[in-house]
């Protein structure tokens, strides 16, 4: 499927990546080529095949609903671009 510029803009917005105007056409071409290639999968009859959603039929284990570790906000915040007290700080989101 060939992607147009508007679709690239829509995907970029969903992916939260700022794609400059002039890059959109180039990306539309590159992404269309990749999608055209992966569409060879349509040659495969998968009518009665269930999607493979885990490797080797692995069942996710349960564990007790208790905290494993924590209680060290300084370590958690050590890499934060901006922090106030024991919180991550972001630009104001509610007016």
């Amino acid at each position, binding site marked *: 499927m060939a992607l147009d510029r508007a679709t690239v803009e829509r995907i970029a917005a969903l*992916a939260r990546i700022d794609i400059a105007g002039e890059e959109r056409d180039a990306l539309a071409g590159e992404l269309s080529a990749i999608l055209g290639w*992966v569409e060879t999968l349509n*040659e495969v009859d998968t009518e009665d095949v269930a999607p493979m959603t885990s490797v*080797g039929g692995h069942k996710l284990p349960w564990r007790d609903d208790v905290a494993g570790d924590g209680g060290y906000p300084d370590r958690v915040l050590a890499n934060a*671009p901006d922090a106030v007290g024991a919180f991550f700080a972001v630009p104001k989101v509610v007016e």
Partner: protein
Amino acid sequence: MRDLGLADIRAGLAEGAFSAVELVEDRLAALEAAGELNAVVTPMPDRALEAARAADARRAAREPALPLDGVPVAVKDLFCTEGVRTTASSAMLGGFVPPYESTVTANLIGAGAVLAAKTNLDEFAMGSSTATSHFGPAVNPWKAKDDPRPRAPGGSSGGSAALVAASVVPAALGTDTGGSIRQPAAFCGIVGLKPTYGRCSRWGIVAFASSLDQAGPMTRSVRDAAIMLAAMAGHDPKDSTSAREPVPDFEAALGGGVKGLRIGVPREYRVDGMPEELDALWREGAAWLEEAGAEIVDISLPHTHYALPAYYIVAPAEASSNLARYDGVRYGLRSPAEVVEEQYARTRRAGFGAEVRRRVLIGTYVLSAGYYDAYYTKAQRVRRLIARDFEQAFGKVDAVLTPTAPTAAFPLGEKMDDPIAMYLNDVFTVPASLAGLPAVSLPAGLDGEGLPLGLQLIGRPFDEETVFRTAAALEAAAGFDAEPEFVR
């Protein structure tokens, strides 16, 4: 001390031929001298010396030797190392210093290993050349006979492969999502093993595609890979996909020989345009195993052709989800803006390189409303068919023999403007990744240009022992002892 393998180091330290500090000082000097390979993102000399002194102190106190006592190991810069910058070779994580240690590196440290450096990789492990790294491409120590151009070490674990091939360190950690241990191992003439999915904990490894990512050893011999995997592997409650399988003594499996084993040669891997030398080496590999007592069986893996397109839906889909966490809020780069939505978009534009952006966009598209079933669910169905092909084959054979990569190492910078040409590097490694199977690449010969070529052995789930045992027989028959000019 350049050529010592893990078993040699074990023996040398036990006999007192050298100390762990002498060894690591020697290797740190070699690391510094290998700057032209651009294989290192962050060296760890202080920490390495401290670990070596601890190993010597244990020996002086007559404590029992640990399995990797004093062994210098280079670590792909995708494993979180406590207090040591971990970048994934991305501008996004250029200043990220993890407050914790990944399970696999913690296991190695617990086994006495001396972590010496964090190695260069394709950004977020997305690539087959180590050329998408924010820190510039790593360089393969091998060169063609009559062509001075520097070669790509493969990727994404290209820095790790280059250091082992250049005999700078005896062993390195890699990760493999679609071939990122095996293809660079083949390009650099070393041994690289991707274990069964679930064999090694993924906790603390920067995530790319969670249903495919696995850590594995990169070494110069099959024995060293077996020793290292045993130290890395094991159940970890912090990774919910970590297997509860016991970890066997892989080294003990090496002497088993291949008498009576049935080795499958899948006809679908004989692809158009495969270099004749590679095809010949593959046939020779089968003949070596046959001479050693194995039975060679012609097999079919009918959906092989569809593995790569399925992978290039599944892996970017998982990547787009995993990389959603890089939003400039909790850690990593932030490009400030007054509105938080704009801050996300600017941060992700500034922090991700072109290939990562491309894959996040593809992944976002195939998971978006209206396209999810047509692309993502379809790819998951094809993935099951590929896994089923192997299940059926393993009813008839004990291991599968294929080439590792379709070519030898290409010149640096090639294929960079054609994503699909780059993706085709993984045509032989991706099927085993999708099926979650253990697979090893080992060097089997040189091509006409003097560049190494690798063969791949694929095994049943959690049967690394048969893979190691067969690889040891193949290694002995191939007698690969060539070294890159860089070493001489």
